[in-house]
């Protein structure tokens, strides 16, 4: 659907729309005079405020923890967490744990997304499928999926499979809701336009419904990937021999709170990276849409 030409033009469009973000900071600093930099900051106070709040909180944490006499074992200072993070990152075993959790999340995400795409398409296009399945989906959606984790461990064992299943199930629902809503969101005028020119139902699906659904699909992917990581970690809590969730429990048992924080930092960074990748993909493939179509689940 998207040709190379389109993508190139898309970049040009994007650059035109939010020019301040376009150049890398280095390039901007080289080109822009000081006055322009000041204007950029006035237009985007968040560029200062967001890191500012971070620095403030970390500093307060760092100095208030000893000042208020909080036990370092319970709430370690940020510098201690950074130390623990350093220790972890230089440990080969840690990277194995991370790899396991990553693979579980990605496999689960892929399965969940694929299932949601197939089922969502069927539900949105075939009335009978919708009528038949919707009650079950609504009923199942109310089940707290996390509560299924022990069951999956019993069924699929202590290995990766049970976590992949958990990640798939938990990322499936937000994706499904967005696929169904997205495929239904097509503008009636656009559908009519294609019909007048002789388009078949499949043509209408391919050329209008599917592109119209893309912003929703990306919203679903964005939520889904975070849910997939959550599912993998929860699965590891219940029963596993490796993975970041397992590591989190180990550090907990050893009362290594700084180590726990280090794992949490790594998990957050993984989530952020995944979110960033999906945002970039969205910018490229759903470039025409405003960034506000998000349906939670």
């Amino acid at each position, binding site marked *: 659907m998207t040709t190379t030409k*389109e993508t190139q033009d898309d970049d040009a469009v994007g650059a035109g729309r939010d020019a301040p973000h376009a150049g890398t900071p280095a390039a901007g600093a080289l080109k822009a005079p000081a006055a322009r930099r000041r204007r950029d900051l006035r237009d985007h106070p968040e560029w200062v405020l967001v890191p500012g709040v971070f620095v403030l909180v970390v500093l307060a944490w760092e100095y208030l923890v000893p000042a208020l006499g909080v036990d370092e074992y319970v709430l370690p200072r940020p510098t201690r967490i950074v130390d623990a993070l350093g220790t972890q990152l230089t440990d080969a075993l840690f990277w194995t744990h991370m790899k396991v959790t990553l693979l579980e999340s990605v496999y689960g995400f892929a399965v969940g997304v694929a299932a949601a795409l197939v089922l969502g398409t069927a539900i949105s296009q075939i009335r009978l499928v919708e009528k038949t399945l919707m009650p079950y989906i609504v009923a199942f959606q109310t089940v707290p999926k996390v509560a299924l984790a022990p069951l999956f461990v019993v069924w699929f064992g202590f290995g990766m499979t049970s976590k992949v299943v958990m990640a798939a199930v938990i990322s499936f629902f937000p994706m499904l809701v967005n696929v169904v809503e997205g495929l239904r969101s097509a503008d009636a005028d*656009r559908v009519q336009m294609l019909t*007048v*020119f*002789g388009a078949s139902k499949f043509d209408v699906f391919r*050329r209008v419904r599917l592109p119209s659904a*893309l912003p929703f699909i990306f919203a679903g992917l964005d939520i889904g990937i975070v849910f997939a990581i959550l599912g993998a970690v929860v699965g590891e809590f219940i029963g596993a021999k490796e993975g970041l969730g397992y590591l989190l429990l180990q550090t907990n048992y050893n009362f290594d709170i700084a180590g726990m924080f280090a794992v949490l930092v790594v998990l957050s960074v993984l989530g952020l990276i995944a979110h960033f990748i999906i945002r970039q993909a969205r910018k490229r493939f759903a470039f*025409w849409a405003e960034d506000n179509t998000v349906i939670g689940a």
Partner: protein
Amino acid sequence: MKSLGRRPGVAAAPDVDENHWIEIDGLHKIYRPRKSEPTHALSDIELNVRRGEFISVVGPSGCGKTTLLKILAGLIPKSEGTVRVAGRDVHGPLPEVGMVFQAATLLPWRTILQNVMVPVEVQRLDRSVYRERAAALLHMVGLDGFAEKYPDELSGGMQQRAGICRALVHDPAVLLMDEPFGALDAMTREYMNVELLRIWRESGKTVVLVTHSIPEAVFLSDRVVVLTPRPGRIAEVIDIDLERPRDLSVMASDRAGVHVERIRTHFNAHGVID
């Protein structure tokens, strides 16, 4: 313009009478909603359109003029009567028809050129042949240089011109226009009217235009069909004997004024000003 000539390999049926290029006979449209009373939208419409003619349909809101156009486009079924376009009975959308909509209805994820090519793609025509034609059409409406832009980079008037190119790209026998300039400001609208006359002259298409604007109908048309309020019947078909080619100054002439007044009388007679 040679590249805007007839579509290769698709000839209209040989026995089509050019005076009956569009043939509407005894057409009725009755909407029958399941839970309410049926509505008689169009009643006993009879109209023949010559090949290459420019026809406008005017009438008060809800008189069924858009219904008439949608029946011609094959979007909704008629209740009774005959509807033929270029010798073919209309039962669904025909490839002989091109349509321009109220909003330009361009697909925002496609470039202007890709939007213009939509009919070519869905009718499985040879893209390489029609790409040239699309480019020629874009040139004709003054959009060269915009082929690779996206719709939201164009003004409303430019988008509507791209919409006209899309309606013409597959070289249809008939161009249907559903209040195509209603969303534009007055200045742009006048300009687009002049443009449309030029496009019509250069392409030689048969045009059926539905419009709210009486002056627009008079300025553009060979004949203006005035419909009555629901159920829509033909109140009068008025020959617009203004010389062609026309420019906007023709609207200041007495004869144009007479036509406008005559149409307006119909509207007033029914106590509705649209």
